[in-house]
């Protein structure tokens, strides 16, 4: 089976600064792939190269079997993306946001209508379907944004710190949604800096200063670094002075 995502020495430089430095990895189909790192480690830049928002400086990558240089637009049909910045229109209602994104992805009208019902019901947001998004609490908005990002049934969904600033209960619910999507065969590529969330992922890569410092299942990583939690693994890797050795 072809991998969902492959990256080979993928690099992005902004002037003198190398944001992403020759990262190489593969994401299998249906996998929940965690992309960990401190702020500024290059996670967002990496994601933006994969989903076609940013042109790589060097290296190779393919997403859903398509080359990121040549077929960015074909990739876009097959992926969903939820950005770190809030990505819904605050001055549109819940329904209008669903309609708009459904329309942009070219879903048929009755499909949009069906999904809208299902999606709103699934989130328990029936009373708020006609409310402006800006009036919703952050946790709800994030769940809504995720549902909209996978509305067109993409093969792969990229989530860039989807749970930033969200309370623990909502985060839990959010991960249940991620699992459900993965169960349906969707590949999930998620960045986070919550180490407990790393435990939920199938495999985890940890980025430090633009490089991938470690990549394995959470279990194997803990064993490798003799750590009790992913948090310890992470601290181990990012401790100052470590990468001189």
């Amino acid at each position, binding site marked *: 089976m072809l991998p969902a995502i492959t990256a080979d020495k993928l690099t992005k430089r902004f002037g003198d600064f190398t944001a992403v430095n020759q990262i190489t990895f593969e994401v299998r189909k249906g996998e929940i792939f965690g992309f960990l790192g401190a702020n500024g480690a290059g996670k967002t830049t990496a994601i933006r190269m994969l989903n076609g928002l940013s042109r790589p400086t060097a290296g190779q990558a393919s997403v859903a079997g398509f080359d990121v240089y040549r077929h960015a637009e074909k990739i876009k049909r097959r992926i969903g993306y939820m950005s770190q910045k809030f*990505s819904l229109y605050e001055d549109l209602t819940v329904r209008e946001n669903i309609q*708009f994104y459904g329309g942009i992805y070219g879903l048929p009208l009755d499909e949009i209508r069906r999904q809208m019902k299902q999606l709103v019901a699934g989130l328990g947001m029936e009373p708020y379907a006609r409310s402006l998004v800006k009036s919703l609490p952050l946790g709800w908005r994030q769940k809504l944004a995720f549902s909209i990002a996978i509305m067109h049934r993409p093969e792969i969904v990229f989530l860039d710190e989807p749970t930033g600033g969200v309370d623990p209960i909502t985060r839990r619910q959010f991960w249940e949604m991620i699992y459900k999507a993965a169960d349906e065969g969707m590949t999930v590529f998620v960045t986070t800096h919550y180490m407990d969330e790393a435990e939920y992922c199938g495999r985890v890569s940890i980025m430090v200063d633009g490089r991938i410092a470690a990549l394995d299942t959470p279990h194997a990583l803990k064993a490798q670094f003799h750590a009790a939690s992913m948090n310890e693994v992470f601290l181990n890797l990012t401790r100052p002075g470590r990468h001189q050795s």
Partner: protein
Amino acid sequence: MRTVLFIVRKEFVQIFRHKVMLPLIFLMPIIQLVILAHAADYEVRNINLHIVDHDLSQYSRRLAGKFQASGNFILTGSSFSSQAAFDEIQKGDADLFLDIPAGFQRSLLRESRAGLQLSVDAVNGVKAGLANAYATAIIQDFNEEVRSELAGPGAGKPSLAIASSNWFNPELNYFTFMVPGILVLLVTLVGMFLSGMNIVKEKEIGTIEQINVTPIRKYQFIIGKLLPFWIIANAELAIGLTVGWLIFDIPFVGSLWLVFGFAAIYLLVVLGMGLFISTVTETQQQAMFIAWFFLIIFILMSGLFTPIESMPPWAQQITKFNPVAYFVEVMRMVLLKGSGLMDIKRHILVMGGYALAVNGLAVWNYRKRS
């Protein structure tokens, strides 16, 4: 095509959701149209005149009376010292003063000639020129009167006269010119403003990223952004013309179809420029300053407020790139003179080329990927 419609719908919802936007987009321009059209009158009426009458004779009073009766001048004061009159001008209370020297009447009757002195505040050169022309005409008229009274009718009257006629607008009604012109400006302002702020706003909030990861095509996106504003601007034009017809009696000599047909192309240029600005800027603030920069140049160099013919040749060349100048001229030609399709062929071709270039540039410059 469907994708485009979804964007169009979204833009409309967003514009009309803000309660303040609707009146700002539709009401404010129309109010401005109705009020400001009255302001754009060059004609110099109500020139403030101060008379210094040292003579206090029958003739000097008759001359003063003629000035007052002319309708062009308002006598704001009279005094017996030129210094006082000069102070009036310094204060801005008088635009000119007429100095009638002592012995004016006596000199005219005995020596058959007399002098007068006219001092005009010439800070506004054109107004001063006109004030001078009016005043001189009144004095000449007075001169003729006196001459025919004393020397018999027809004495020395020149037999070559200059007659002038004003075609298409014999009453020199400036509304017929200004209302369509100001309407063009307002439609342009609204259109360029809405389109110029649009994409850049999505950039600033971050929603543009979400659009950019979708499979949407660049041209679909630009058309989807263009269309709502195109419709709004056309609606605005229609409302404005209706107002012009109802309130100002603007004659529609030529074909309205032609006006709207031209507007359709013209708006593509204006909106395309807005979108282009939107694609090259990062913040709404930048976009606004750049849009403002061009708008004010387009407006002041459109030939509406001051004639293009008066500009130096290089500035006249610049106006060849000013879309507003074209539309103002087409409005004037079609609505007031009844020019037809063939008469404005050149304007249409230029605008068509312009529209293609600007929108091509906007599509080309809009990057889905950095």
